[in-house]
């Protein structure tokens, strides 16, 4: 009886795992003996002794089941009385009545839930007794079964859901469609109904067509490779499931590629129709929409396996393969295509960028490592002019203090730090007022700061600098700047200025970063191994930077320095910039600040670019005469 079970339970549990390490066994599907009444219990458990012993399991597996669930279950879950056995053995002090009470509560709970689900029970105001609830449940089930006429009871595997329904659920969950394509020509042999919802093509349109008509041209090679026979690709690249590494295929190549069951998984871009196709109108709409559609593609993840059928089977249906090959097998790919979301991956709310914003990334010491292209229209610098340079070179002197302070803060905290408004020098000498949000991104593994992400918002364009209307004023602009910088930079607390070294703006960032590294080294423990590669590279670059800034006494970047810093275009680039400058100089109408500045505020990017270029082209001269373009040397 129950005592017998309890004893059995106790005996078996002796050799069992501690509660936190338990496992639910599978052997008997769901064979929880009902211990509601001892008689039933013993009856059931004895009848189950045989199968259980056959599998070498204990007959207390069910109490194990209970034990596990008890560890983290919630009250209204059903685990039955195996648990009570366990409880009984473990704490003899708990009265039987309490156990019984718990059992009853569980049962009641379940029945309450059931009554909530049954439509007929719901409106009843008074609580129904259990028997009624159960009776109504049975009726409800009968009615459900009656209405769902699309499946037959006679299927060999009784299941909760008929397969048809299951298929619908799977497709709904996966946002996918099944397709079968022949390997030789990519002919679509079969496609499931769900494709209409996903790609907006009807089934009839697709079946019989070649898959390659619907794939992005650049992905055709990829798909062909996945479908094709082996001769073209002698080297197999398979991935071993356990290690994830490439395994050199020792198997004979032909056999492994085309054998049934060989898996395929790839991404490709498939066309989709913008206009959803209605089934009734498919004839007319399909044709017109095909012509009009503007080749929209979505990324589809296809997973499936190769399968081959003897061609003799395929002849019967209209979907069968038309031309029978000599080989007796028709091999094809059976796969499910799941659509990746159409939109871009989720943009983190922190980094949402609006039109007058741009994003930059600094290394720990304030050097640019990534510059959004939008920055060019706002700041005037091209990305590679900024990369590798320290942001402090562009900050206005008055702001250096508070920005250095923020820099320090952001390296030490994980939150977003807002700066105040500060001025950033643009290429043309003027300043734009920016306000930024910084946060440092930390590598989750070694907890180092990888970089600082800065989202910069433009507050205003500053036109206070005089317009550079000529070469002279450019020079004067330069000299003015150099004057500014000849005054010593404001003393920033914490930044040492050893005698003999001038403080370069760039070195501020480096020093702040070094502070942090030292701080980390002192305080934290053995991630020093990880720190060193980083600090090595960091140590190298300040020296090179210093070399460059040494050559420029004023520490500003003016146009003359650009050739040294930017990419290896070298000569031609060097030639063009001063040329450009002189050109601008000649034309007294040109006033880049007034052109570039306020116009950027309101215009879109190409209009801004247009303004710049049109202003360059705007001359008094007639543009009427033909230019012989062949004469020009398009050295690229």
């Amino acid at each position, binding site marked *: 009886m129950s005592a017998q079970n309890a004893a059995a339970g106790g005996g078996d549990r002796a050799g069992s795992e501690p509660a936190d390490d338990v496992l639910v066994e599978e052997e008997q599907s769901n064979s929880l003996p009902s211990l509601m009444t001892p008689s039933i219990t013993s009856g059931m458990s004895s009848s189950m002794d045989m199968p259980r012993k056959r599998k070498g399991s204990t007959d207390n597996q069910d109490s194990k089941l209970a034990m596990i669930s008890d560890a983290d279950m919630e009250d209204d879950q059903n685990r039955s009385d195996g648990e009570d056995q366990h409880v009984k053995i473990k704490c003899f002090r708990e009265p039987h009545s309490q156990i019984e009470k718990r059992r009853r509560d569980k049962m009641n709970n379940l029945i309450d839930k*059931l009554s909530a689900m049954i439509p007929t029970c719901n409106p009843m105001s008074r609580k129904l007794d259990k028997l009624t609830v159960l009776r109504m449940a049975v009726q409800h089930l009968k009615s459900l079964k009656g209405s769902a006429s699309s499946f037959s009871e006679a299927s060999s595997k009784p299941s909760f859901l008929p397969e048809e329904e299951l298929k619908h659920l*799977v497709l709904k969950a996966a946002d996918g469609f099944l397709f079968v394509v022949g390997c030789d020509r990519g002919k679509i042999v079969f496609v499931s109904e769900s494709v209409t919802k996903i790609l907006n093509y009807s089934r009839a349109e697709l079946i019989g067509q070649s898959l390659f008509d619907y794939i992005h041209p650049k992905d055709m090679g990829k798909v062909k490779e996945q479908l094709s026979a082996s001769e073209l690709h002698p080297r197999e690249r398979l991935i071993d499931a356990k290690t994830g590494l490439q395994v050199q295929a020792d198997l004979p190549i032909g056999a492994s590629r085309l054998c049934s069951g060989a898996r395929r998984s790839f991404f490709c871009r498939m066309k989709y129709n913008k206009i959803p196709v209605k089934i009734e109108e498919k004839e007319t709409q399909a044709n017109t929409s095909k012509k009009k559609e503007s080749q929209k593609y979505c990324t589809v993840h296809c997973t499936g396996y190769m399968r081959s059928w003897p061609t003799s089977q395929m002849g019967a249906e209209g979907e069968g393969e038309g031309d029978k090959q000599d080989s007796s097998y028709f091999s094809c790919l059976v796969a499910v295509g799941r659509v990746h979301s159409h939109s871009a991956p989720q943009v983190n709310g922190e980094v949402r960028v609006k039109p007058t914003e741009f994003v930059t990334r600094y290394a720990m010491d304030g050097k640019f*490592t990534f510059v959004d292209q939008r920055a060019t229209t706002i700041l005037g610098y091209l990305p590679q002019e900024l990369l590798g340079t320290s942001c402090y070179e562009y900050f206005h002197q008055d702001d250096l203090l508070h920005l250095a302070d923020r820099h320090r803060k952001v390296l030490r905290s994980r939150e977003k730090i807002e700066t105040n408004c500060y001025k950033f020098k643009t290429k043309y000498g003027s300043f734009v007022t920016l306000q930024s949000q910084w946060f440092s991104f930390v*590598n989750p593994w070694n907890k180092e700061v990888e970089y600082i992400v800065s989202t910069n918002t433009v507050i205003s364009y500053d036109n206070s600098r005089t317009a550079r209307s000529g070469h002279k004023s450019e020079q004067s602009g330069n000299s003015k700047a150099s004057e500014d910088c000849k005054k010593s930079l404001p003393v920033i607390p914490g930044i040492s200025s050893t005698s003999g070294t001038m403080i370069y703006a760039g070195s501020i960032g480096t020093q702040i970063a070094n502070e942090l590294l030292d701080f980390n080294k002192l305080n934290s423990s053995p991630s020093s191994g990880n720190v060193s590669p980083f600090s090595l590279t960091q140590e190298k670059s300040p020296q090179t930077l210093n070399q460059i800034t040494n050559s420029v006494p004023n520490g500003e970047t003016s146009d003359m320095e650009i050739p040294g810093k930017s990419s290896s275009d070298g000569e031609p680039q060097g030639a063009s910039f001063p040329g450009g400058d002189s050109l601008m100089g000649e034309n007294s109408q040109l006033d880049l600040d007034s052109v570039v500045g306020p116009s950027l505020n309101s215009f879109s990017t190409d209009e801004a670019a247009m303004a710049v270029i049109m202003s360059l082209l705007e001359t008094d001269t007639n543009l009427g005469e033909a230019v012989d373009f062949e004469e020009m040397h398009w050295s690229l």
Partner: protein
Amino acid sequence: SVRAHLDKPSVIRLTLSYIRLQTLLKVHEKRNSLSGLDPLDENSMYLKILEGFLMVLSTLGDMIFLSDNVSKYMGLSQTELMGHNIFEYTHPCDHEEIRHNLRLTAGWCVLNQKRDFVVRIKSALTHRGRVGNLKSTTWKVLHCQGRVKLCAASSSVSCVLLTCRPLPLSHTLLSTHTFTSQHSMDMRFTYCDQRVTSLLGYRPEELLGRSIYDLCHTLDTSCLNKNHLNLCLKSQSVSGRYRMLVRSGGYVWVESHSAVIPGVQPSRSRPRPNPSQPLCILCVTYILSQKQQLPDVKIFKAFILKLLFSILKFQTNPMCNIALDEKVIYGQKKQLPDVKIFKAFILKLLLFSILKFQSNPMCNSALDENVK
């Protein structure tokens, strides 16, 4: 025979599930007409192809329905599990993430209805895939993807449909548009396949020691961060789509499937994992798209080209000039020869500007010392 082994509470549990499921289907599904000829026995294929099982979860975490192949992956049968709560079977550290994914979203925005996450779940299978005994509890990593099904009538019927696939996935044939790479646990490259050169332009030697975060677009930082965290905690991960910078400028969309394994040398064909070796991360990265320019550049370049053509047009059609450019009207000024040179120069300037926009920020960073 299953029925004989069910006890009363189980019966009720399963009944509840069944009713919920039917309610769900009734509310949402219009029963489509039968698909007609079905020579391929379509219905049974789906789960086999997807290599996973279907799970329907209520907003409280009750597993309303599980497809019957769940026993293949978890070692527990459908009837054992249905109706129970998923929080009993998953790793406690993942509970918060599960709760977050079960939350119904207020809006009807389609995007918010998609779910994609990785959890650790208890499995009764041994490493070799056989149903194990008590001592062999393992955590299996499941990749769950699906959507929310909202029911306007009653939110208690709303649920989340998920297909769950255990990671890592089985043998697959890699295409030419993928490359594999190994990383140390902080995501710095320790090895990279040769294919990366043809796909992204970097030589493998250039990448060693670099962190993957340097290679990627700043806006995708959060996606990569999540991927990295999944790897550290759960040992497997599927990243979403993110952008990798290409050496010559611009970026491509990629997706990575990664796993943490004990360090193995890539050259050995039959690696034997050595427990004393440090862990490393193995990544298979699929390239999804062609190189894209950053959007402003595209606009800028398109505009430059338009401008060039319009310059050409100006040359060839005097009528055009007269109509558009008033300055021209004031006498037919002879074009000075300087203008020709000037225009040629302008065009060169524009072209060089285009070229510069092509450049890759990555190359100009500390990686390339020639720049300095």
